[in-house]
């Protein structure tokens, strides 16, 4: 099947430092793919290059909504344009809007799927009102989906840590993506929360029918969740395959030696 994300030879230099070196990666429809590797391997840089926060030095990024239009090249697009195409992300160090409520945070995610502008804001005609109503309803639905209905009118900064992570996921889902990029979604979570996250990510894939690409250090989560795994080290891809294949890959074991009991 045609992949939803197709990355060819992605390269990123910072001055003399090569943070990404000809990385290939693809994600297929409804697939959960994990990107792992030691700290500093270039995983977050990879995310930033795909989502338009950095402009890659070389290589190509293609993406296509499954069953939708032909694939689009994402290089050189701005972050908001990438999101409009249908890729949404979360951040390693949670980046919510702290002084906005949980609901408002998710409503911001609806921004690129709604359209009322200055005129609509001032005159607030029937179309604008309907759009606002739908935004609120849809945002609330998403909060329910990630089990945050109880916090709907709470300021984002007052939410417990695990809830903030889930709020970021809800906010990303509000942009109607076909590919969700999660940057260490389980970081800082206790085992119980991680378990719930595992269940949540699977549920999102099944119910929304979207693909998920995640960076994660929690090997238990990665192994149980992923259909395929890509391993990076020093800016290069060193392995890819099913969890079983990765588990026994000598390259991977070498990269992680002394750091993680794989």
């Amino acid at each position: 099947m045609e992949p939803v994300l197709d990355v060819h030879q992605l390269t990123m230099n910072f001055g003399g430092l090569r943070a990404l070196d000809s990385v290939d990666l693809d994600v297929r429809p409804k697939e959960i793919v994990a990107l792992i590797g030691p700290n500093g391997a270039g995983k977050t840089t990879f995310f930033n290059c795909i989502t338009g926060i950095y402009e890659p030095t070389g290589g190509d990024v293609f993406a296509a909504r499954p069953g939708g239009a032909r694939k689009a090249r994402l290089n050189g697009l701005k972050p908001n344009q990438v999101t409009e195409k249908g890729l949404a992300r979360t951040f390693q160090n949670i980046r919510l809007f702290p002084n906005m409520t949980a609901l408002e945070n998710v409503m911001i995610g609806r921004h690129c799927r709604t359209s009322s502008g200055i005129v609509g804001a001032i005159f607030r005609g029937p179309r604008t009102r309907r759009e606002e109503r739908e935004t609120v309803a849809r945002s609330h639905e998403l909060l329910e989906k990630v089990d945050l209905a109880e916090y709907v009118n709470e300021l984002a900064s007052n939410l417990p840590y695990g809830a903030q992570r889930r709020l970021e996921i809800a906010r990303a889902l509000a942009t109607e993506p076909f590919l969700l990029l999660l940057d260490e979604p389980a970081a800082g979570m206790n085992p119980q929360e991680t378990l719930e996250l595992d269940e949540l990510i699977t549920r999102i894939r099944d119910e929304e029918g979207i693909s998920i690409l995640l960076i994660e250090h929690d090997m238990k989560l990665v192994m149980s969740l992923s259909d395929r795994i890509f391993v990076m080290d020093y800016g290069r891809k060193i392995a890819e395959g099913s969890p079983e294949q990765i588990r026994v890959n000598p390259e991977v074991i070498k990269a992680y030696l002394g750091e993680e009991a794989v």
Partner: protein
Amino acid sequence: MEYFLELFLGGLTRGSIYALIALGYTMVYGIIQLINFAHGEIYMIGAFTALIVANVLTLNGMQGIAVLVIAAVAALVWSSAYGYTVEKIAYKPLRDAPRLSPLISAIGMSIFLQNYVLLAQTSDFVSFPSLIPDFAFMDPVAHIMSSAELVIVATTVVVMILLNLLIKYTRMGKAMRATAQDKTMAVLSGVNVNRVISTTFVIGSALAAVGGVLIASHIGQINFFIGFIAGIKAFTAAVLGGIGSIPGAALGGLVLGLTESFATGYVSSDYEDVFAFVLLVLILIFRPAGILGRSTTQKV
């Protein structure tokens, strides 16, 4: 050709002054990422202090180079004291506030200081005694470069060299560079960041005072408003060279001084101040990192 040379040397003089003030902007920005709007006022207060001291001394019968030295030292001392105090009042309490807050506070401080001098002294231009003597050896070239201009350029060069030595080799200089690079790490390695910031303001203010005394005795008159325009232009110079960079401030000052001098000389003097503003707008839009600055990638 002679006209060209005259404009060139005039630009060099202007540029030296801009560079002296620009250093204060650049050093403060390098350390706390704040455009210290009040810096131009520190320069103005330096010029006023020198004027007041020089006048008192002259009226009491003193003359010659001694007046210049005492006035300059007084300007240095008081400007530094103002710089130190301004930081403590208007910026230190806002260390952790959103970025807009210290900026607004800085604008407020600038207006406050301008009007403070306006009310305590005068709104008129006051004439500044020409303290820099005419050197005999400059006579042959006096029609294109005055002794005052020579003193300004020479002083600037000496001050720049001293500053560079200070930053490169002293303990405080190292602490300043460390703080500029990473404040948290500097604290962790035992740098007293508050002291570094205070010192930066004091040094920057002292440099501005030098500029103030030099330009005032060259132009011959000052008022409470000179700091504003000089401040904007020096800031332009700092940005031009690459804000945060000390050689950049020197280079930016020269480029701006020469540009202004040639533009007013060959194009039109009506728009003297417009050139600097246009240059500022253009450089910020097309090369915000400046001539010597490197563009940085924001960490996400």
